[in-house]
């Protein structure tokens, strides 16, 4: 198999399979959650649920001052790499073109050197989170193989993207193929691991805000 064949494989059938597993898997996960429902609450409400729920969805991007003081590393590095990941994913022009070809929607991207810098920062931040996970007593204690697996499948697309962009792997079709493969692994793994938080965290935050909101507290 030439590097071109490999690229075509990753761009063609493998990509289709990955998208299908991701979409179907995620759908099952969400159905599994919502199908459980919520029991009727007989206690007289003090406040609403909808708006407090939405506010909590937003507020957890922005931790309370006490938490920031007690865990500044988690907050800063966590925010940096999450933003970096999303910027590289959604504002890199070739990615936007791919999305346009698939869904027909488009938006402006950032200049390549900017995305490049963001990617480099994201890689460092991700490495820092790994070191933190391996050394911080609570994180080390909580971590399971799954946590290291999802770190790896998150790190690889960023890393291979960076290597491909800088032509550090040759030939180029191989580099690009590896990047696409890494993204596919990410998509396939997502519904079966806590990577689901990409979607379910919004659900969880809403429920949290709704449960507290009903009692008159903005959580």
């Amino acid at each position, binding site marked *: 198999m030439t590097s071109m064949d490999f690229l075509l494989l990753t761009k063609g059938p493998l990509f289709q399979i990955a998208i299908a597993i991701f979409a179907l898997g995620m759908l099952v996960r969400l159905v599994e959650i919502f199908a459980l429902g919520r029991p009727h609450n*007989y*206690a*007289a409400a003090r406040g609403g649920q909808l708006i407090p729920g939405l506010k909590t969805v937003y507020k957890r991007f922005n*931790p*309370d001052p006490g*938490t920031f003081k007690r865990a500044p590393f988690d907050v800063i590095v966590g925010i940096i790499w999450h933003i970096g990941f999303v910027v590289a994913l959604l504002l890199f022009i070739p990615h936007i073109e791919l999305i346009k070809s698939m869904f027909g929607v488009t938006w402006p991207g950032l200049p390549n050197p900017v995305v490049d810098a963001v990617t480099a920062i994201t890689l460092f931040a991700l490495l820092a989170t790994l070191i933190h996970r391996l050394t911080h007593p*609570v994180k080390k204690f909580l971590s399971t193989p799954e946590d290291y697996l999802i770190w790896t499948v998150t790190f690889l697309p960023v890393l291979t993207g960076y290597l491909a962009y800088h032509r550090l792997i040759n030939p180029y079709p191989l580099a690009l193929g590896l990047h696409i493969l890494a993204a596919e692994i990410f998509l396939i793994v997502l519904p079966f691991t806590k990577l689901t938080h990409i979607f379910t965290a919004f659900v969880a935050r*809403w429920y949290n805000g709704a449960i507290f909101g009903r009692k008159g507290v*903005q*959580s």
Partner: protein
Amino acid sequence: MTEFSLERGLNALREEMDAPVASFFSSCVHCGLCATACPFYVETGDPKYTPIHKLEPMRLLWEQEYTLWGKLKSKLGLGKQVTDEMLEEWEPLLYDSCSMCGRCSMVCPVGNDIHYMIRKAREGMVASGHAPEGLIAASVRAVNTGSPMGLQWKTLDVQIKHVETATDLEVPIDKQGADYLVLLSSMEIINFPEYLEAITKIFDHAGVSWTLSQQCFEATNAGIQIGSKDIAATLVQRVVDAAESLGVKNVISPECGHAYTAIRWEGPNAIKRAYPFKVFHIIEVLDQLRAAGRIKTEGKEMDRLSMHDPCNLARKSGVIQQQRSLMDLVADNFVDLEEHGKFQWCCGAGGGVSSNERAEELKMAAFKRKKAQIEQVEPERMVTMCATCRTQLEEGLEEFNMDIPVVGLTEMIADHLVERDKPDDAAAKAGG
């Protein structure tokens, strides 16, 4: 409580699974931030006290039975099973090291309401026979005698007589159609008899129509602390029966945070119907009276005062501003702790920790967070509005040789009431 077994425990847990729980377990990324929110972790530094870890048995069951992937894994014989040994190991984590303060739920970046799940997980612990002895004993006493401390009406009656002599006022008992049914907590009756005297004075001053009920005076609910819906329902039903037979429109929960969440939020769900009356914490009622101009005070406390918000009242029930408005009325030099209101730190004694002798050491460890907060502000006295918090603050401050008395807010208000003309005095004056 009949037979306990692993299967019953697992069934109880299954009953507790709902969409929020599934979304929470699906979202945890093991970041560990919830640990930084928990006084039991912060003051011991032991990672096993990380809030989400306390839910591992429930999470395992959820994964195995409520996710396709988990079902597949357990079919293939992969993954751990929830066993009796596991539940036994988790018993101290779910009871001794958790006051159900709910602070972790405010902090988790993915939005997990961890304390919501801890409450649920305890149902499984009780049904499988893994609840702490102290809490079982309290529950049995509550069911059998009406009070978790085994206190009887005659003890309260003695206190009522004292109050009546001291105040020259009547303490209304079983008064049909009163506006408010006043409940008490045994802890309060024993440790802080001042409370009953204080509300007797305040309600007389404000002209509130109220009553106690011989049928049911206890507001706390051991069933909710231990995690047994059946016991909870039995105990709540007593309050509802008493309120209905007296035909009251409102029920007042005493200076006890737990009792308030128990009756206000959990009670209707325990008996599966809405109440025909409203439930208020005494602080809410006092603040309503204040706002309506029915409480007239004179003079102010001049020393430096700070306040401990009971978790159940503030973070878990949204009563935050009321106590501050009341403080304004009677305190000249009030300063809040740095993290207060919905972000306050637990005193360490809630959620059944104080009824669980085994947890004594952890309870004092968790108190150190509160102590640090108090040291930062250096008040001359602390004010609070929960008998459990107050007892814990008093014991804790004494343990660390800090000479800071703790006062109940209701009493403090009662101390500043403007003497009201007695109706007969007024009549005498008018006549003379």
